[in-house]
């Protein structure tokens, strides 16, 4: 009897402690997922009452070239950013891992861009890229219109994204490198393996979990990039940097087509879940294969 009462009390205490977070997470994280599904089936401009339109928003976005463009731009942006930041981050980590005097100083310096507001950094780089007043053209001595040229705008934004994240990525590789057991290197050295062979056959395979983490989180966050683009190009020129997040923002808060924006958000969620699952499957197979 007593134990039952104690258990009831414990349950009451637990749910009291959970009340604030239940309200917060329920209202602001779980409910919006259902609201976005509901909204995606309706037409609404924020002013007049919304109307049910079935799957029309989905049909519309599937046939809208601007939507196709924004998915393509986002994929291209991701394809530019992820390999470069991963390779550079690994390179920096390898250099820092030599643990020469002063390494901690460089390590700290490299992550400064990562703690700064992407919006503010985007504005700073908009100035750096400015054709007449900017630093870049002053250094190279040519007048290049980086951000208003259709071919250069996206790579420029991608470069800023890489610049701000290399230090952050290298921190994870550094943690991964310090977890590689020293005796493996010792054994390789005794066997006369070259530095390159050691890297390919010991370091890289053992960094696989770290690499997996970096790739998954990197891809997911680059599919949501917004602030940097908003500051540097606002999606232009002519949609060449119109990433999905910019497009959703445009649909919802500039053109006031909330139903379509919601349908786009659902489509993005589906893509991201698919990316995550695909990466899980691919890496799991690779890892088991390695072990077996």
């Amino acid at each position: 009897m007593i134990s039952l009462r104690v258990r009831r009390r414990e349950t009451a205490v637990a749910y009291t402690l959970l009340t604030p977070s239940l309200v917060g997470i329920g209202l602001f994280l779980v409910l919006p997922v259902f609201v976005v599904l509901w909204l995606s089936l309706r037409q609404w401009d924020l002013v007049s009452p919304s109307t049910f339109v079935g799957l029309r928003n989905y049909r519309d976005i599937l046939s809208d070239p601007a939507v196709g463009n924004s998915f393509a731009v986002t994929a291209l942006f991701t394809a530019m950013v992820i390999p470069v930041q991963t390779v550079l981050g690994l390179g920096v980590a390898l250099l820092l891992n030599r643990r020469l005097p002063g390494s901690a100083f460089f390590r700290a310096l490299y992550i400064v861009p990562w703690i700064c507001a992407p919006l503010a950094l985007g504005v700073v780089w908009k100035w750096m890229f400015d054709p007449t007043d900017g630093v870049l053209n002053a250094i190279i001595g040519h007048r290049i219109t980086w951000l208003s040229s259709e071919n250069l705008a996206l790579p420029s934004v991608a470069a800023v994204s890489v610049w701000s994240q290399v230090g952050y990525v290298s921190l994870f590789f550094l943690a991964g490198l310090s977890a590689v057991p020293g005796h493996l290197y010792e054994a390789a050295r005794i066997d006369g393996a070259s530095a390159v062979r050691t890297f390919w056959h010991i370091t890289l395979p053992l960094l696989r979990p770290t690499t997996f983490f970096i790739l998954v989180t990197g891809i997911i966050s680059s599919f949501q990039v917004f602030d940097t683009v908003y500051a540097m190009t606002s999606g232009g020129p002519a949609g060449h940097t119109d990433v999905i997040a910019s497009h959703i923002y445009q649909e919802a808060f500039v053109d006031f087509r909330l139903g379509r924006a919601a349908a786009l958000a659902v489509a993005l969620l589906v893509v991201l879940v698919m990316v995550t699952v695909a990466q899980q499957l691919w890496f799991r197979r690779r890892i088991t294969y390695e072990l077996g």
Partner: protein
Amino acid sequence: MNSVKRVAGRRIAGNAATYLVLAAGAVVTVGPYLLSLLTSMKTPRQFGSQTSPLAFPSPFTLSNYSGLFSGEYGFVTPLVVTVQMVAVILVGQLLCSVLAAYAFARLRFPGRDALFWVYLSTLMVPQIVTLVPLYTMMAQAGLRNTFWGLVLPTVFGSPYAIFLLREYFRGIPGELIDAARVDGAGTPRVLWHVVVPMSRPILATLTIITIVTHWNNFLWPLIITTGPTWQVLTVATANLQGQYNGNWTLVTAATTVAMAPLVLLFLLFQRHVVRSISLTGMKS
């Protein structure tokens, strides 16, 4: 002898190359900050007539900064609003997350595992997906362009903080909590006098993450506020840039103001920030 010398020579060359690359990286990393700081200390006149944007300010001036804060461009309000917003979210989030994490880590109750699973699964939903519905919900509740509109979605605890705290709380020896209970301490006292003091490192980490995330947040404040009353620093910076495009001495002063507090915070707690990132993977 000769080969020893050669090995030593190769090592010195290798170290020198390492430093060279690291230094080049440092220049590329810090360059934009220093250059925008320098530009923010030039007069618009010098900026307009200079031969190179790399030139040193002469004369040095703080007029861009005094202009920002003198009311003409209204940067005082955004600074105050940002500090308020970050402070309220920080306190609310830590408090609510500690309460929830304690329940998940230390209490037995029906529905615990299922509920924790729901909390965790919300981590997979990206902000951009919930943006539109969250906005419409806030608009329906009449909270557009209010302080509560800014803080409500995140003030009641974050699933990620709850996850990290739960892991940490599970490591606290049960005897300590039982001993406090035998002495007649209720749950609030146990939390405040046993659990919280023992969790300082993880609480410091969460403090850093929360401050960085919300000081830098842009998209939510951008859509939920309009006009100057509840403008935060990032939104004010973006608006200033849009309005005074080309007035780079002023704009770089604004970006410096937006970034300087966090950079200073980082310089003070550098070691802790580095550890926090490796520990948590931050925003991810």
